[in-house]
C-alpha cells in the first residue's frame, strides 16, 4: 500500500445554513494549509445537489481520490446519499466519512461563530484522520441453509411450519411428546371464534400434511447445537437414535404449562368440588347440552358455580424476595368468560359467580364479558388482600368473600362447584434452555431481544422464539407470533446468501493474549477461543457478531477491535478533534 493518500474534502454551505455561522472559507483554508494529503478541498453550496455529486464523482475519477470527507448536515440525512455517490465513482463507500457541521456545529452555536467554526474544523480534521486510517470494507456474505428447525408441535410450532413450508422453506418440526397439538388439542370451544381446540389443531395438521418439504418427528428432543445463523447444526434425540440436522434458523415454540394450585389453595384437593379451568374445559368439551340439560359433576347436581380468578397469576411479590408469578396470564379472563358462556348455553339455570380482580377482557372480548353477564354470570370484584375463602359445608362449597365493591363486608355463599381460573407458567425445558442457551426473563418465559424492535429474536442470532414460550397469549395471538417468527426465519434463509453489515469485531492476532474477557462480555456468543499455530486466541464469528463493540471496551490488550471503528481510527479521530 502506498503511503500517499489522496483525500478529497467537501465542505457544504447548505445555502447559508452552515456558512452563516461557520466560516466555511476559513475551514477550507485551514485544511489546505495543514493537510498535504488533501488533494482537493472545496466548499460547495449544496454538497447533496446532483451537480455537486457529479463534481465529486469527476474529482474522484480524475484526481484518483482514494478517500473522501464530506462535511455537511447530519449523516442520518445524507450518509447513504454520499456513500452511493462513492460507489458510483468506483470508490469503496466506506472510504468516505461524513461529518456533521450543521446540526452539531452551525445550528448548535449560532451565537458563537468562532466556536462553531472551530468545532466544524475539528470535526473535519477528525473526518480526515478517520479516512487516513480507514480500510475498504465489504458487506459480509454468508451462505444459508434453506431449512428451519421448529421445536414444539403445539399450535405455534404447527403454524410456523405451515407458513415456512408455504414460503418454500424446508421445515423439520420436533415435538417431545407423542402427539401434536399441545394444550389446545385438549380444549373445547375456544373464544372468540367458538371452534373446538381439537378442531383448530386438526385444521393445522391437515394443512401441513402432504407437504413435501416438512418433516415431523414426535418423541424427539434437542441434544445440542453448534454453528450460527444460516448454518446451524442441531443434534436431535429420536426415541433410540440421534440425528443431526443442518438448518439455517431455529424457532422455539415450546409453549406453556398450566399453573397447578398447591394443595389447599382455595380448597384445591381438599374441598370436594374445587377444580381448575382446564378440568372444567374438559368436562364441557365432552358434555352435550342444548340449554335444557343439567350439569352433574362428581355426582353432584350443579346449580351454582364460583369462578375464582387470578389463581397463580398476579401474585404479590413476597416480602422475603421469594418467587411469585407476578405477571398477568392474559388469556384467563377471556377464557373464563368464554367457558361461562358455554356453561350458560349448554345448561339450564346455572348461576356463575365470578370472583375477579380486574376483568381483563380487552378489545372485542369486552362484548363476551357483557354477554356472560346477561346470560347468568355475576361478577364480584375482590381485592388482592381479601381473597375469597373456600370451605366444605354439608354437601356444598361455602365461599366467604369480601367484595371491594361493597366495602369488603364478609358475605357467605354456597355453590356446588368452584373453578379456579389458573394462569400459565413457563414450561420446564431446562435441558433445551441449556442446549440452545436460551435467555429466560424474570417471569420465567423466554426473553426477546427487544419487545418492539426485535420481538421474536433471541441473543443468538437465528434462534427465534414465539407463542406462549415467550409470554402468556391466547390462540389468535400465538398464531400471529408464530407467523412473525416464520417471517423472520424466512428473511434469514430465503435468500441463499445473507448480506451482513461489515462492522463486525475482529482480533488482532499479534495482540491477543487470550484473556477471554471478550468471550464473557459478548452477549451474542460470537467469540470463541481457538488455537492457531500453537497460540490460544479469541476468534470472532462474524455471522454471529452484531457489531456493538462491547468486546472492544473490555479487551485488556486492545486486540479486539471493530471494523470501521478500529482503535487506530478512533484514536486518530480523538487526536483530530483535540487539535
Amino acid at each position, binding site marked *: 500500500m502506498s503511503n500517499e493518500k489522496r483525500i478529497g474534502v467537501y465542505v457544504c454551505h447548505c445555502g447559508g445554513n452552515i456558512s452563516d455561522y461557520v466560516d466555511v472559507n476559513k475551514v477550507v483554508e485551514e485544511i489546505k494549509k495543514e493537510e498535504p494529503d488533501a488533494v482537493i478541498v472545496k466548499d460547495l453550496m449544496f454538497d447533496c445537489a446532483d451537480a455537486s455529486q457529479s463534481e465529486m464523482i469527476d474529482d474522484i475519477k480524475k484526481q484518483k481520490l482514494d478517500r473522501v470527507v464530506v462535511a455537511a448536515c*447530519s*449523516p*442520518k440525512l445524507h450518509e447513504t446519499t454520499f456513500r452511493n455517490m462513492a460507489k458510483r465513482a468506483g470508490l469503496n463507500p466506506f472510504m468516505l466519512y461524513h461529518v*456533521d457541521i*450543521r*446540526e*452539531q*456545529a*452551525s*445550528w*448548535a*452555536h*449560532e*451565537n*458563537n461563530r*468562532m*466556536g*462553531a467554526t*472551530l*468545532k466544524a474544523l*475539528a*470535526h473535519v480534521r*477528525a473526518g480526515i484522520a478517520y479516512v487516513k486510517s480507514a480500510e475498504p470494507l465489504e458487506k459480509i456474505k454468508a451462505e444459508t441453509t434453506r431449512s428451519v428447525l421448529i421445536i414444539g408441535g403445539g399450535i405455534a410450532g404447527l403454524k410456523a411450519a405451515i407458513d415456512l413450508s408455504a414460503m418454500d422453506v424446508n421445515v423439520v418440526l420436533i415435538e417431545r411428546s407423542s402427539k401434536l397439538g399441545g394444550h389446545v388439542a385438549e380444549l373445547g370451544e375456544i373464544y372468540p371464534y367458538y371452534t373446538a381446540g381439537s378442531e383448530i389443531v386438526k385444521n393445522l395438521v391437515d394443512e401441513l400434511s402432504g407437504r413435501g418439504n416438512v418433516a415431523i418427528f414426535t418423541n424427539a428432543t434437542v441434544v445440542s447445537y453448534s454453528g450460527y445463523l444460516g448454518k446451524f447444526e442441531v443434534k436431535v434425540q429420536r426415541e433410540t437414535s440421534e440425528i443431526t440436522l443442518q438448518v439455517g434458523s431455529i424457532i422455539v415454540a415450546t409453549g406453556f404449562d398450566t399453573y397447578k394450585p398447591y394443595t389447599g389453595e382455595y380448597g384445591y384437593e381438599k374441598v370436594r368440588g374445587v377444580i381448575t379451568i382446564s378440568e372444567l374445559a374438559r368436562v364441557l368439551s365432552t358434555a352435550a347440552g342444548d340449554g335444557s340439560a343439567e350439569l352433574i359433576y362428581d355426582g353432584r347436581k350443579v346449580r351454582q358455580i364460583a369462578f375464582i380468578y387470578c389463581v397463580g397469576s398476579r401474585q404479590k411479590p413476597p416480602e422475603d424476595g421469594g418467587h411469585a408469578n407476578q405477571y398477568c396470564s392474559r388469556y384467563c379472563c377471556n377464557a373464563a368468560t368464554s367457558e361461562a358462556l358455554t356453561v350458560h348455553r349448554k345448561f339450564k339455570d346455572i348461576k356463575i359467580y365470578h370472583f375477579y380482580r380486574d376483568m381483563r377482557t380487552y378489545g372485542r372480548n369486552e362484548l363476551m364479558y357483557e354477554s356472560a353477564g346477561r346470560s347468568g354470570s355475576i361478577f364480584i370484584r375482590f381485592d388482592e388482600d381479601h381473597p375469597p375463602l373456600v370451605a366444605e359445608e354439608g354437601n356444598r362449597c361455602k365461599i366467604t368473600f369480601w367484595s371491594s365493591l361493597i366495602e369488603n363486608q364478609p358475605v357467605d355463599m354456597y355453590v356446588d362447584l368452584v373453578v379456579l381460573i389458573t394462569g400459565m407458567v413457563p414450561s420446564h425445558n431446562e435441558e433445551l434452555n441449556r442446549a440452545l442457551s436460551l435467555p429466560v426473563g424474570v417471569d420465567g418465559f423466554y426473553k426477546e*431481544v*427487544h419487545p418492539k*424492535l426485535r420481538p421474536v429474536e433471541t441473543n443468538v442470532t437465528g434462534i427465534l422464539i414465539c407463542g406462549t414460550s415467550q409470554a402468556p397469549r391466547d390462540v389468535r395471538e400465538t398464531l400471529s407470533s408464530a407467523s412473525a417468527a416464520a417471517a423472520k426465519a424466512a428473511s434469514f434463509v430465503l435468500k441463499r446468501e445473507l448480506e451482513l453489515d461489515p*462492522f463486525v469485531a475482529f482480533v488482532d492476532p499479534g495482540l491477543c493474549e487470550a484473556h477471554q474477557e471478550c468471550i464473557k*462480555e459478548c*452477549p451474542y456468543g460470537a467469540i470463541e477461543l481457538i488455537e492457531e499455530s500453537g497460540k490460544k486466541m479469541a476468534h470472532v464469528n462474524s455471522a454471529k457478531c*452484531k*457489531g*456493538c*463493540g*462491547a468486546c*472492544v*471496551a*473490555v*479487551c485488556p490488550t*486492545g486486540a479486539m477491535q*471493530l471494523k470501521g*471503528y478500529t*482503535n487506530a481510527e*478512533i*484514536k486518530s*479521530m*480523538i*487526536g483530530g*478533534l*483535540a*487539535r
Partner: protein
Amino acid sequence: MSNVNFEPKILVFSTNMISDPGIDLAGMSHIDYPPSTRILRLPCSSMVRPEFIIYAFESGFDAVFIAADGGDCPYLSDCSERTARNVQRAVDMMKEKGIDQSRLRMAGICSVCSDAFANGVKNLYDIVKGLGPVNGSKNA
C-alpha cells in the same frame, strides 16, 4: 486557578442510532451548549474503551461526556450497565493519573433527549471550568 479565558474542551462519545440523533436535535432546536464540545460517534456506548477516555485527556481534552444509549440500544438492553462498568475502570485509571474524576460524565441520552444532553454538557463545562485545564490539575 480557574481562568476566565479557559475554554474547557469536552469530548462527547455518542452513538449512531440513539444519542447522536439526540445531539442533532439539540442543534435543530437551537439549544445553546458550549461550542468547545467535540462529538465522536460509535455504534454503541458499551464500546468506549477506558483507554479512549484516557487518550482523550492526554490529547488535550479537559472532560469526556459519554452520551450512552440507555434502554433504547438496538444492540444490547443492558448496554448502560456495561458502559458504566467501563466508565468505572476509566475512573480508576484516571485516579492513578491524578485526573479529577468529575471530568468524566456518563448520561443516558435518547434520540430526542436534546435538553438532557445540553444540560449535561453545560453542567460538565461549568465544573471543569472551575477545575481548570487537565494538565493544570495534575500540578494542583
